[in-house]
């Protein structure tokens, strides 16, 4: 048998798609565990449903496109898209909502552009944005969390598995009141009468740092993200860019704790989907910029847009829209941040690149 000579170094890197995808899934586990603790089975049902839908749709489209089905199913990318999408959707979303979001992400976000590695937009965020625009009522009814009944007896968290399944598969069969509430971002945005201290005392949604329960989930995403950084699945540039820009923006425009407060930097960093976005969404290698410097710019753009949309926009949270808008800018960022190749002259940058190289 002829052995193909392989030149050293014989690195056993963690750079295979499948390994990377599995590690990303593993890093979400602390967050998933906390979400399940606070909100009941909803998150797990979401993940299970979205994963099944995504795998079936992916297999179907690969078959239609005459591509090897098992090869691409095995790389786990469909699973990661579905998983992240499921974490972004509110727990106990009706099954058809999950189906529409996953279907849109897989078909229009990924395969119409040519499959894994070709998509200009983050598929999970595309699916999320479509359902957020289409079904605002379902998408803004976040269930209340474990422990709220001690603060407000009128609200009861959905914790049982059967009750959860009923909410997902037969929506409308259970009373619509008392199980969902506004998120902390909503409360602060709509508040115009109370100071932040008064708001904290009256609104159960607000916790010590950001949203009650939410702040802990955010810290869990942070922990998962640090694990991925340590494993060198991605570099620090995009997350640091996003968190840095968001912190800077919220510090610059922080108008104190009065009734017109835009929220403190800590509130914005630990509120909403900031941490999930910073460590699991903007780090998508396909739809973000290419070079390290480019990723820093990309992340910073997302951070600025998140703040702008949260504070002066119309939507409750902004990560999906910010990421999609920056996806659109990623090719341009790449033009202006081309790094110097070792041993070569400085790279020409900017849009007229091809022309100046010919001289």
């Amino acid at each position, binding site marked *: 048998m002829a052995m193909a000579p392989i030149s050293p170094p014989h690195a056993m890197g963690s750079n295979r798609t499948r390994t990377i995808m599995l590690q990303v899934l593993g890093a979400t586990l602390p967050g998933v565990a906390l979400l399940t603790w606070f909100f009941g089975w909803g998150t797990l049902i979401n993940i299970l449903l979205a994963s099944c839908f995504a795998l079936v749709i992916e297999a179907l489209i690969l078959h239609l496109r005459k591509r090897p089905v098992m090869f691409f199913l095995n790389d786990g990318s469909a699973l990661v898209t579905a998983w992240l999408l499921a974490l972004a959707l509110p727990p106990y979303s009706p099954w*058809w909502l999950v189906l*529409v979001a996953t279907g849109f992400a897989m078909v*229009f976000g990924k395969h119409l552009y040519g499959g894994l590695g070709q998509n200009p937009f983050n598929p999970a965020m595309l699916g999320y944005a*479509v*359902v957020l*625009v*289409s*079904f*605002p009522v379902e998408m803004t009814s976040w269930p209340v969390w474990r422990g709220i009944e001690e603060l407000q007896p009128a609200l009861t968290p959905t914790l049982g598995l059967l009750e959860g399944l009923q909410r997902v598969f037969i929506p409308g069969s259970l009373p619509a009141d008392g199980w969902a509430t506004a998120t902390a971002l909503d409360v602060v945005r709509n508040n115009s009468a109370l100071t932040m201290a008064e708001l904290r005392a009256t609104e159960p949604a607000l916790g010590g740092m950001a949203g009650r329960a939410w702040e802990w989930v955010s810290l869990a995403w942070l922990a998962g993200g640090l694990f991925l950084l340590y494993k060198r699945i991605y570099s620090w540039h995009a997350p640091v860019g996003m968190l840095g820009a968001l912190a800077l923006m919220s510090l610059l425009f922080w108008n104190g704790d009065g009734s017109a407060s835009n929220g403190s930097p800590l509130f914005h960093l630990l509120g909403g989907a900031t941490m999930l976005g910073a460590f699991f969404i903007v780090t998508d290698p396909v739809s973000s910029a290419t070079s390290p410097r480019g990723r820093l710019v990309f992340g910073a753009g997302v951070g600025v847009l998140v703040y702008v949309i949260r504070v002066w926009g119309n939507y409750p949270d902004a990560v999906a829209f910010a990421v999609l808008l920056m996806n659109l800018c990623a090719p341009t960022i790449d033009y202006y941040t081309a790094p110097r190749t070792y041993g070569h002259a400085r790279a020409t940058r900017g849009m007229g690149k091809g022309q100046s190289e010919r001289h």
Partner: protein
Amino acid sequence: MADKRYSELAADGLWHNNAGLVQLLGLCPLLGVSSSTVNALGLGIATILVLVCSNVSVSLIRSAVTDAIRLPAFVMIIAAVTTCIELLMQAYTYELFLILGIFIPLIVTNCIILGRADAFAAKNPVLPSAVDGFMMGAGFALVLLVLGMLRELVGQGTLFANMHLLLGPIAANWTWVVFPDYKEVLFVILPPGAFLFMGLLIALKNVIDNQIKARQAQRLEAPAAAGSKRVRVTGTIS
């Protein structure tokens, strides 16, 4: 151009050179008002009327108008015709007129109409110009109608809702609820849905065209194989 047969004009207008799917002209009203069947049909009919009238008028005066002033003259004609249609709609279908709003006067700026006036009616006799105008308008209206029906079906789960706005009391209960208890899909009703479905329609047309081409190529290939075998290294036989 002048000796084109009417069947060719029809095929061009409805399919090969379709204003909506191939020339991609007049996208603004196409995407703007295709959110329901009745809107789409209303604007489609209005566009056909304007296109036929303007083509006929332009064709009538084609020898009297010099090149230098032809465009202003065409635009004046189109604007006059559009205003007539607008007044007619205001008189007979007032509610639809209110819904379509700015898109009725905007027919003036629809590129298809000026395009056909300049490219066809200014060089052809009256009758072919009228047929061309009708076929181009019908092609545009058909795309508009399909888009409107698709978006109404997916967006609201109904078909032919509010048709009485256009057709009067006979159509009062034509509303066909295809999916009862349907959740409105706002994304499809809003403009992005129009872009999405437009893209899908264009893709569908290209798929059909490619299949027709492949089938024709197959038919042509079969006899060619039995021909003489002449070796030729450069150039092509003419």
